């Protein structure tokens, strides 16, 4: 782990709630090697997005550190491209201009930035909507625009919070493949939150499972299947990991139990 | 004083032109001495407002109030429901004034190209111009409409000339060490005029002549007393407005000056209005084309000046 690009060390964080501060992260440790693909899974509301925010430098943890390339970047944003769970499209920019935003911020002239992201719009099925306002997009189109904006920044480290949650099977497959291929080509480092375990094992080098409230890392599963992989036809290693992650989440246990008596125990 | 508590006493609302000053002394005397009460009147003095007393009277918001020679004539020509009933000051008590320490203005014609601080009245500039021209000047002054801060502008040097009351602003300026130099209208060909008039609603005078007469009589007695006993009258004025005067000594001095030089007619009487004197300044306004009729058109025929005042009797 000495060569890990990103290290999260013993991160603790409490967030305000109606009845006072509530611990959300309680000693999260994470190591992400350079050029690897990490998926984070865990029960809804456990703290995945919060953890991603800490890694992005948007939230300063109460305790613990975030190291990037060995440097302490705790609470310092601006090192990674971040895609929020809600898309955060800027209502005052068209789809094209939203996608070009990152480049503009990097100092690229507006016209050049637009030119450079046009291909991406085509790739993401957004070409027809380049001049639409976000308020005129469907949920899936919004999510694609947000993802396009994130990758358009051309960063080495991507932090993605459920990037495919609102997509239909075909678009999802297409973008998963596009991401896997582009990642492999550019040697990006990706940390991606998802609630689709099959997606996680299809894409990741390691799947990190968080436990619920407050969140700790409950398990780390390396996925060693060769690439390129078929998301809809997982190999033996991926199937094994999928099974143990689902078991860890408690999803298999429930599925096997008598349907009507099943109860959710967070 | 049983009459004083009688709720049925006729109400006379009286409008003021300015914050308390010695032009109001007679009113305060009559109030303080209880002469209105004795006449069975409930006189309510309205506070000073931005609205001209003539407008208040015309609108029915007051029965009587303080006006000026020019204003009264203008209002009546325009068809306002007012009429002059009393002349507290029998002579021209305001004057064109510059700062005495301004050596560049020693006579009216020096005022060419200067700034006049005024009230927006229609007659002010023509009057000023007439005086300048009578002195051989061109009469091109810039008029700035300032209202209540006209004198402050003069003192501050922002304006060069204003029209104060000699016995009020003039005295005040002198007492704070910035005396004024005056150019009197009568020195430049103008007939004498009534500086201050009391106007009443014409229809009120017609409908309730006894009440109006009683009121005017009591008020005239007040001014008579102020002319006869300036020191006592000044004290009554100060006592009626304990907060209003920074320098009570000036009030006394002002009242003495008014009593000595401005309040009495040539025959020594107080308050009376002569058609001839009313007509003098009235004709000037008419000739200047400053009088407009009820329809807004400039008056061209000379009005019957005798209808512009009524003598409600009483002892002069």
């Amino acid at each position, binding site marked *: 782990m000495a060569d890990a690009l990103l290290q999260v060390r013993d991160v603790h964080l409490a*967030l*305000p*709630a109606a009845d006072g501060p509530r611990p959300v992260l309680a000693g999260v440790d994470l190591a992400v090697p350079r050029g690897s693909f990490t998926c984070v899974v865990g029960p809804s509301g456990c703290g995945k*997005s*919060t953890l*991603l*925010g*800490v890694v*992005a430098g*948007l*939230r300063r943890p109460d305790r613990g550190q975030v190291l990037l390339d060995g440097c302490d970047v705790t609470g310092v944003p601006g090192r990674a491209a*971040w895609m*929020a769970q809600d898309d955060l499209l800027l209502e005052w920019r068209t789809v094209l201009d939203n996608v070009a935003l990152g480049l503009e911020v990097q100092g690229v002239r507006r016209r050049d930035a637009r030119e450079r992201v046009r291909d991406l719009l085509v790739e993401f099925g957004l070409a027809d909507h380049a001049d639409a306002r976000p308020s005129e997009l469907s949920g899936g189109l919004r999510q694609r625009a947000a993802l396009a904006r994130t990758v358009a920044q051309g960063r080495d480290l991507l932090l993605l919070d459920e990037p495919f949650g609102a997509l239909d099977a075909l678009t999802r497959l297409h973008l998963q493949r596009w991401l896997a291929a582009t990642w492999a080509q550019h040697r990006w480092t990706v940390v991606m939150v998802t609630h689709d375990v099959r997606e996680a094992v299809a894409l990741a080098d390691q799947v990190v499972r968080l436990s619920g409230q407050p969140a700790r890392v409950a398990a780390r599963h390396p996925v060693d299947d060769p690439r390129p992989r078929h998301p809809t036809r997982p190999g033996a290693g991926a199937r094994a990991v999928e099974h143990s992650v689902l078991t860890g989440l408690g999803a298999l246990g429930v599925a096997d139990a008598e349907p009507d008596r099943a109860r959710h125990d967070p | 004083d049983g009459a004083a508590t009688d709720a049925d006493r006729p109400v006379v609302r009286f409008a003021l032109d*300015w*914050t308390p000053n010695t032009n109001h002394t007679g009113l305060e005397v009559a109030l303080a001495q209880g002469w209105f009460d004795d006449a069975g009147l409930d006189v309510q003095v*309205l*506070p*000073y*407002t*931005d*609205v001209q007393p003539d*407008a*208040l009277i015309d*609108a029915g*918001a007051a029965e009587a109030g303080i006006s000026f020679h020019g204003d009264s004539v203008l209002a009546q020509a325009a068809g306002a429901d007012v009429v002059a009933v009393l002349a507290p000051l029998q002579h021209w008590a305001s004057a064109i004034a510059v700062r005495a320490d301004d050596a560049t203005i020693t006579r009216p014609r020096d005022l060419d190209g200067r700034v006049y601080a005024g009230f927006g009245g229609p007659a002010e500039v023509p009057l000023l111009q007439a005086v300048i021209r009578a002195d051989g000047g061109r009469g091109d002054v810039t008029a700035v409409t300032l209202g*209540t*801060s006209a004198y*402050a502008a003069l*003192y*501050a040097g922002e304006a060069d000339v204003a029209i104060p009351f000699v016995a009020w602003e003039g005295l*005040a300026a002198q007492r*704070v060490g910035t005396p004024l130099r005056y150019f009197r209208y009568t020195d430049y060909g103008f007939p004498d005029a009534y500086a201050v008039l009391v106007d009443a609603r014409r229809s009120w005078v017609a409908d309730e002549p006894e009440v109006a007469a009683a009121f005017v009589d009591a008020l005239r007695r007040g001014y008579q007393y102020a002319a006869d006993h300036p020191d006592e009258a000044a004290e009554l004025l100060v006592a009626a407005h304990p*907060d*209003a*005067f*920074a320098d009570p000594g000036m009030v006394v001095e002002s009242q003495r000056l008014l009593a000595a030089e401005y309040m009495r007619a040539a025959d020594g009487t107080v308050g009376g209005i002569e058609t001839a004197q009313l007509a003098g300044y009235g004709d000037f306004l008419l000739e200047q084309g400053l009088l407009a009729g009820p329809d807004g058109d400039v008056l061209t025929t000379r009005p019957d000046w005798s209808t512009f005042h009524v003598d409600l009797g009483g002892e002069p």
Partner: protein
Amino acid sequence: MTDVPGRALAVGVGGLALLGVWQVVVATGDVAPRLLPSPARVAQQAWTHRDALATHAGATLTVTLVGFAVSVAVAWALAVTLDRLPRLRTGVVPLLVASQTVPVLVVAPLLVLWFGFGLAPKVLVVTLVTFFPVALGLVEGFAAAGPGASALLATMGASRWQEFVHVRLPAAMPRFFTALRIGVTYAVVGAVVAEYAGAVQGLGTYMTMQRAAFRTDLVLAAVGACAALTLALYALTCAVERVVVPWGRARRVRRG
């Protein structure tokens, strides 16, 4: 909430700094006290005349409160009506704007002519001066509710009234309070203007008198009283907002 003392401190420091500069300017420069008295003198004279100031301030406060209450009521009635009748809105809003362009200074004396020296003309002036920003804030606030929430209520079978209560009303609250803050600021000024036009008592009347008496120090003392009144009312609206719009400044943390 915890930063209230810090805030008060900041305000205090800012205010004192301003007064300090003023005092120094007056002390060093040769400004005639008739034009600009020192703050120390103003304070001292204000203390001497505190009874008169308090009486007049009380009168002004009454006018302000009654007038502003009427104004807010009028603004609500109007904004709710316009919100429900969008047709009317396009026609009426420009007329409201036009109504604002009539200078109060001109109208106030006319109101005195028509209504005399009682409370009525003053309340009217305050209402005229303040109902517009409040109504405009409300109208735009109602419109600020997104169409989604209204659609949701429609599917719930909500009446127009329920949609209004559950969606447009709460959505308008933040802008309403911004407008209320602007309005209350002008309410005191409006009351003073009204008193200028004709009043027996009040800070406006007091200022007129003192100005005519060349007592700039007392005029400024009255201005100070005005400012104090307004700040108190402004703080009150902030406090009310904190109670009425708790979601506005909810336990907010940076997201991520």
